[in-house]
């Protein structure tokens, strides 16, 4: 281990920013908090990105580690104990000071604080608590704070952090218990799920208390999901109830009081999130998305993030970075994640044991639609909101606008374009006043051919691929006597 005394602030920021960059979540969303007039900062429900790095990822928060010293040996992590890397540690004053200076200049929305485990989980968590307390009390900072919960740290420390942070997250790290055992020997499903459940229950109790404090007759907060009695995660993923059995008693957890009153808006008001590393171990998309679904349903998570595995330690027994393919897979997972959260889809509708991976040629929504042609086309002027949401090219906003606009006038294709519908995709699945925009042959193969994006088509044409896929582009002969609407599958512009 390389320990260097007296590192400059610049050097520390370089080391500890670099060490934090593989954490995905950079969102500053989920809570609206106006300024108080005498403190520094506010937060917006929609969140604000302040810059975009060379990799195109948003920079919203000052994302740093408290320290990159660590006693754990996680194989995927550059900071694992046995690595010979430069180590650095921020003092709470340094971390809080940087946050304030950056915030005043409108570089950031707030702080995203994580840490290596050093010298113990409790000590690491305490140092983070100290930093956050400095910000909230000494600097009267009312901007956004996201803190990683430290697995294995005392629940009381986690709780106090929760009273000061807007969002907390515990990294699930790997989708399966098996993967976790092999790659992160010092972590276990239990040390990860315990704080996750604690935060979930804390949020719930805090909201309940806030609702009861309201005068009767006032509308309360968000309706809480009913308790689920099933196991936490699907049994097919080696997370049987008996394995997590002793976690169930955590249900008796009672949220304590904040030690100090300050500029906070409750316990973890922006909710909790988690992240998984994708592609380090061999699970299928179906397994990953099933875990995601249960995290949303059983842990009330706000977001699940996916991070394509980067072999930072150059381990020969770990998969190497394969660029585009890995990023494309990550992209499909995020698309499916949106379908779960905003489009009322269930994962069983998108994937199954027999079709365990996403179609790399079509996004999950198009893929669902071409496999369920019996549901289409739908009539724009009559279909209910839920049905509209299932049409490729119609998003949440455009579905809402359609429902509003058709009360005033009968809608036709040019109107849909103005409303924001992506006709290029939607045109195969909708009618306006009983008519389709073009005479489209409703078959899975022909529609797939039009929907595959041009980049993919070029890639495929340059490669040796099987007949099945080639046939998709062999359209003129397949659909004889019928002219495709626009050459190259570009669709209606």
């Amino acid at each position: 281990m390389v320990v260097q005394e007296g590192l400059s602030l610049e050097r520390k920021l370089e080391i500890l920013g670099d060490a934090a960059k593989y954490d995905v979540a950079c969102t500053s969303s989920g809570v609206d908090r106006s300024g108080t007039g005498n403190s520094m900062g506010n937060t917006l429900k929609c969140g604000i990105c302040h810059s975009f790095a060379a990799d195109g990822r948003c920079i919203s928060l000052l994302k740093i580690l408290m320290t990159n010293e660590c006693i754990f040996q996680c194989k995927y992590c550059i900071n694992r104990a046995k690595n010979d890397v430069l180590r650095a540690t921020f003092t709470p004053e340094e971390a809080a000071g940087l946050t304030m200076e950056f915030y005043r200049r409108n570089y950031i929305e707030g702080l995203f604080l994580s840490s290596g485990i050093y010298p113990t989980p409790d000590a690491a968590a305490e140092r983070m608590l100290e930093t956050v307390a400095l910000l909230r009390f000494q600097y009267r900072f009312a901007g956004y704070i996201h803190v990683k919960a430290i697995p294995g740290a005392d629940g009381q420390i986690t709780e106090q952090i929760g009273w000061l942070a807007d969002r907390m997250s515990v990294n699930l790290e790997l989708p399966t218990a098996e993967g976790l055992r092999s790659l992160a020997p010092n972590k276990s499903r239990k040390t990860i799920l315990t704080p996750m459940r604690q935060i979930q229950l804390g949020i719930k109790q805090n909201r309940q208390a806030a609702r009861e404090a309201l005068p009767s007759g006032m509308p309360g907060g968000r309706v809480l999901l009913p308790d689920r009695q099933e196991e936490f995660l699907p049994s097919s993923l080696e997370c049987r109830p008996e394995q997590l059995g002793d976690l169930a008693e955590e249900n008796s957890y009672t949220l304590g009081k904040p030690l100090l009153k300050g500029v906070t808006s409750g316990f973890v008001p922006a909710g909790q999130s988690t992240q998984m590393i994708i592609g380090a171990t061999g699970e299928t998309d179906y397994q990953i998305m099933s875990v995601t679904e249960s995290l949303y349903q059983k842990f009330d998570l706000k977001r699940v993030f996916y991070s394509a595995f980067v072999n930072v330690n150059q381990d020969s027994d770990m998969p190497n970075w394969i660029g585009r393919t890995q990023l494309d897979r990550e992209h499909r997972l995020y698309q499916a994640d949106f379908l779960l959260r905003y489009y009322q889809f269930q994962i069983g509708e998108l994937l199954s044991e027999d079709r365990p991976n996403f179609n790399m040629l079509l996004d999950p929504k198009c893929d669902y639609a071409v496999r369920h042609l019996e549901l289409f086309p739908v009539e724009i002027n009559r279909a209910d909101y839920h049905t509209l949401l299932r049409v490729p090219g119609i998003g949440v906003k455009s579905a809402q606008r359609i429902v509003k606009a058709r009360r005033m006038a009968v809608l036709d294709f040019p109107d849909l374009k103005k409303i924001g519908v992506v006709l290029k995709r939607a045109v195969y699945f909708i009618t306006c006043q009983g008519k389709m925009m073009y005479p489209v042959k409703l078959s899975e193969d022909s529609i797939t051919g039009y929907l595959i994006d041009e980049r993919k088509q070029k890639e495929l044409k340059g490669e040796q691929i099987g007949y099945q896929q080639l046939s998709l582009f062999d359209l003129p002969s397949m659909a004889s006597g019928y002219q495709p609407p626009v050459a190259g599958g570009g669709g209606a512009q």
Partner: protein
Amino acid sequence: MRDETKPMRILLCEDSLEGILTGVYEAYQSRYGHDNIKLYLAAREYELELFSEYHKVRPDAESSNKVLLSILEKIGDTARKNVVEAAYSAEPDKADVIYRYLIRGYAVGSRIVDYLSDPYVSRLFEICRRLWNEVHRWKEFLRFQIQENGLLTAVIEPKARVLTFLMPHFADRLPIENFIIYDKTHDQAGIHRKQQGWFLADRLGRDYPEYTALLETTTKEEAQMQDLWRIFFETIAVRERENARLQTQLLPKWYRDHMVEFHSNKE
């Protein structure tokens, strides 16, 4: 219906809320027929149209207020808000779009906001959306510098007149700071005094050019802080995932002129 016996009358409005609404007022007062009138912005250059007569509209607060009040009464608050926002936008056709939107609005009342299949309603909606996109981008990409006396200064070059919408955001966020945001494009400054609210000042650059130059000075301490931010900005990118196209799509280059992470202090 267009009356072909009358020449088309084109009202040239000043590029401001007052200017455009005065144009609307005069169009109504003239009883010349809506289809025989168009509203243009005076500042823009147009190809003169044959058989048209051009009238310059002198902005008038009283007429403009009358229109605002009647929108509020007869069409509703959402429509009033949309019209005001559209007037602050940078879209060249906004004056005529507002005029046509209001003609329809007076006919159907508050339901006008849902007539998205109407070309002028949807265009107005689009204009507002663009304005809010730009306002949001400046909330993201505006950068303050801290001057020796503790004053926060920022310079922006927006397309639309965004200050009206930006100032409430920053006043709520930084109530305990003195700050100035200077809109170079429109020569307008938003000035916030610590715990005392904010106001807009026009023609700061014309009247006090040496002052607007001061807003862009960087002190030595400030340069150090900017260096720290550049270090973080460079470090946080994952090399394996580099994607300049995506970066440009999300952060268009014209916003970068005053962003410290895209410029070095050494030049």
